[in-house]
């Protein structure tokens, strides 16, 4: 089915009569943002489904809700009274069946005094014309069911989401989080449903014949009571078998979910483990650091204590000690001398000691004169300086002086610090008693110990900084933080354990199923033994044939499905490679992975078959598109979708310019006709030239659209229409 043309009249920004004609290949409508591309997509969708896509809501909305918004503002603005309408007509051509379908939808509103009157008849009207091309005769279809049948023929409802979509919807076409999504897409887009139905029919017919057979067994039994008993046991076993199969399926689902979760977490586990390892190192270092700081504090206190208690403070004060010793001895000697002198003086003044001359004779003045003249004036003998005679004369003078200074000398006795000075002297003596080398060792040990502790502390602090930096590096590269790292590891461990448990559970169910099958077989034999006479051959044969038919139908379905998946994988990679050709990034390869529950999920692997995680949104969407294209092409005998047109608005918006040409080539390979609205070719002239001239692209019609409004009219849509320019 080919879309020949779309005629648009007063529909949204398309005021007046507008026409786009299409042919086989890629038809492209080029226009910048808000130039009318999405409105063209809406026009297609509106005709078939009476809905338009509302970007604000991100959903399709019925005409009844949109109302007169469907009608061009220009038409509404220019009308004062009367009726205005919007209409879109699409002509579909089914060359294979020699038929043309024309679908025309119209919405009318009333204008009174330049205002739109609320329309009570909110529905649009669809006219369908079914024509035979050869005769150019057509018939108007009145029956609504008939109209729906034709619409479904043009685009089956279940295919709609895969063939007509907007850029904004691309991501949701296949939800990769839903494990059955791909399988259901395969079922919808391929002919798998035929095989599925045949399996259902085979089951149904087998159940019927099985019931008939069992009934016959009971009726021909020589011990009806026993047969009924065995039959009941068989029914119980069959029920058990069915229930266990359900449990098995559920367990398989659980395994698939656990595996998926494990895989999802696995990409983060390495980072989480690294963070956890670094965190453990930090914790260990912090504990050691706290211990070392305690030790250092202790060592510092001991050192200060030892400075005083062990007299380490005096280390290096030997010379001062010596000096002090001399001073102390001098002080002590002086003090003793003074004490002696005082005593002598006291004895002299008290008359205890007799002298050669009376006290104070001769007078000091004469004594001085004698010393100067170096002669005794009493006896007249010579007394040379520093001779004994001279010193004896001098003594007379000193004695007199001492007597005069006796008050001053008393101070020595008033402030008697000898004991304290002596203590200090003793300290010095104790240091001198060969203890210094020992103290030095102790001080040295203490300093080394403290220095080592400080080095260790710095090392540990560096380790903490280093580990923190490593953690931040990982956090920067991934979305994991320290808190979630532990959570991820725990969850991963739990999921792994769960998976193991489910596998054990699966084995248990499988053993039980085997037991039930054995039991049913035994019961069948026992029931057979009770039969008197013969079971009719036709029934035995019928049962055998239908049982084999069921096996063949099931096996065929699985075989066709697996074959389809394999073809799908190959084709998805062809399309994926084609779409990613213009981009330099690593692309990997699509693999459709079979899950334990039988569903398939696409994943990207590298050339060694390792799963590549963390690909970007653009890639993810390309995988989806490639998979859809593959489903569409793999299920079609000549790899071209003959009957349905791909219509997509802004499909490139999510993956960028590099993929645009690749996408067009892939679309060329898969779809007989496609209509693509794009802005990528609007400003990129080189891309546009490539689109129109690349031999791998089967180009159809190319149009450029732009709004008619001039600068001064851009504040409203009162004069807005769309200019359509055909580029080929």
């Amino acid at each position: 089915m080919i879309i020949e043309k779309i005629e648009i009249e007063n529909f949204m920004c398309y005021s007046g009569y507008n026409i786009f004609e299409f042919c086989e290949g890629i038809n492209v409508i080029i226009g910048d943002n808000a130039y009318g591309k999405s409105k063209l997509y809406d026009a297609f969708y509106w005709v078939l489904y009476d809905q338009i896509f509302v970007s604000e809501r991100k959903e399709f909305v019925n005409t009844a809700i949109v109302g007169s918004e469907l009608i061009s503002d220009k038409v509404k603005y220019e009308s004062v009274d009367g009726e205005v309408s919007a209409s879109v007509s699409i002509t579909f051509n089914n060359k294979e069946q020699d038929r043309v379908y024309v679908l025309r939808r119209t919405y009318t509103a009333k204008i009174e005094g330049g205002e739109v009157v609320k329309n009570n008849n909110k529905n649009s009207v669809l006219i369908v014309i079914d024509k035979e091309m050869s005769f150019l005769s057509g018939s108007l279809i009145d029956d609504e069911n008939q109209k729906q049948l034709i619409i479904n023929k043009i685009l089956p409802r279940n295919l709609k989401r895969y063939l007509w979509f907007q850029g904004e919807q691309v991501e949701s076409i296949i939800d990769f989080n839903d494990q059955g999504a791909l399988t259901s897409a395969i079922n919808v887009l391929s002919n798998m449903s035929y095989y599925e139905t045949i399996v259902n029919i085979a089951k149904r017919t087998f159940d019927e014949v099985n019931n008939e057979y069992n009934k016959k067994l009971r009726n021909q039994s020589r011990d009806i009571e026993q047969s009924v008993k065995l039959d009941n046991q068989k029914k119980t076993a069959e029920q058990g078998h069915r229930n266990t199969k359900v449990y098995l399926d559920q367990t398989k689902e659980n395994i698939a979910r656990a595996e998926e979760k494990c895989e999802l977490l696995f990409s983060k586990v390495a980072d989480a483990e690294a963070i956890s390892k670094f965190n453990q190192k930090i914790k260990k270092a912090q504990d050691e650091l706290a211990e070392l700081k305690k030790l250092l504090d202790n060592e510092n206190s001991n050192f200060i204590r030892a400075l005083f208690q062990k007299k380490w403070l005096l280390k290096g004060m030997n010379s001062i000690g010596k000096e002090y010793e001399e001073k102390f001895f001098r002080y002590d000697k002086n003090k003793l001398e003074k004490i002696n002198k005082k005593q002598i003086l006291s004895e002299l003044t008290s008359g205890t000691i007799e002298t050669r001359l009376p006290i104070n004779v001769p007078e000091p003045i004469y004594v001085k004169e004698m010393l100067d003249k170096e002669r005794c004036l009493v006896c007249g003998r010579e007394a040379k300086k520093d001779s004994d005679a001279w010193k004896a004369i001098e003594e007379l003078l000193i004695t007199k002086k001492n007597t005069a200074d006796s008050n001053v000398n008393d101070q020595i006795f008033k402030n008697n610090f000898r004991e304290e000075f002596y203590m200090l002297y003793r300290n010095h003596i104790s240091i001198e008693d060969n203890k210094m080398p020992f103290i030095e060792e102790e001080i040295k040990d203490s300093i080394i110990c403290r220095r080592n502790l400080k080095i260790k502390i710095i090392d540990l602090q560096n380790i903490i900084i280093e580990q923190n930096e490593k953690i931040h590096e990982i956090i920067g590269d991934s979305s994991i933080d320290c808190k979630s790292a532990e959570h991820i590891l725990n969850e991963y461990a739990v999921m792994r354990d769960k998976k193991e448990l489910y596998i054990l559970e699966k084995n248990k169910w499988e053993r039980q199923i085997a037991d039930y099958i054995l039991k049913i077989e035994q019961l069948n034999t026992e029931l057979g033994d009770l039969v008197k006479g013969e079971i009719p051959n036709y029934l035995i044969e019928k049962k055998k044939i239908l049982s084999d038919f069921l096996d063949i139908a099931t096996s065929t379905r699985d075989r066709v499905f697996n074959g389809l998946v394999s073809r799908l994988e190959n084709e998805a990679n062809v399309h994926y490679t084609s779409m990613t050709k213009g981009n330099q990034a690593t692309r990997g390869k699509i693999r459709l992975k079979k899950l334990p529950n039988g569903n398939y999920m696409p994943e990207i692997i590298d050339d060694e078959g390792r799963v590549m995680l963390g690909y970007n949104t653009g890639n993810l969407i390309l995988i989806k598109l490639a998979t859809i294209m593959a489903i569409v092409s793999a299920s079609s005998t000549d790899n071209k979708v003959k009957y349905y047109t791909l219509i997509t608005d802004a499909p490139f918006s999510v993956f960028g310019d590099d993929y645009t040409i690749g996408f067009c080539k892939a679309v060329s390979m898969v779809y007989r006709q496609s209509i693509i609205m794009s802005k990528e070719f609007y400003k990129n002239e080189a891309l546009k030239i490539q689109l129109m001239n690349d031999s791998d692209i089967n180009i159809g019609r190319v149009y450029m659209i732009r709004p008619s409004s001039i600068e001064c009219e851009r504040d409203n849509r009162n004069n807005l229409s769309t200019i359509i320019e055909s580029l080929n």
Partner: protein
Amino acid sequence: MTKDNIFKNIISDPIMVERGYLKEDEVDDLSINDGGENKIIKIIKIAVSGVVDKDSETSISRYINQSLNS
């Protein structure tokens, strides 16, 4: 996908040969439009035709049953 494609897919299943319904060299030559007395092939044809023609499952299985009773 034509009736014949589906039919051929089913009869080419290994079980058909394993259980003696067909010989290996017979598979390629068979078509849905061929006559023949092979009962399983007969019911496969009924099933395929019914499914492609969108007959109901009930009526297809009834038809299969009837064909095996005769």
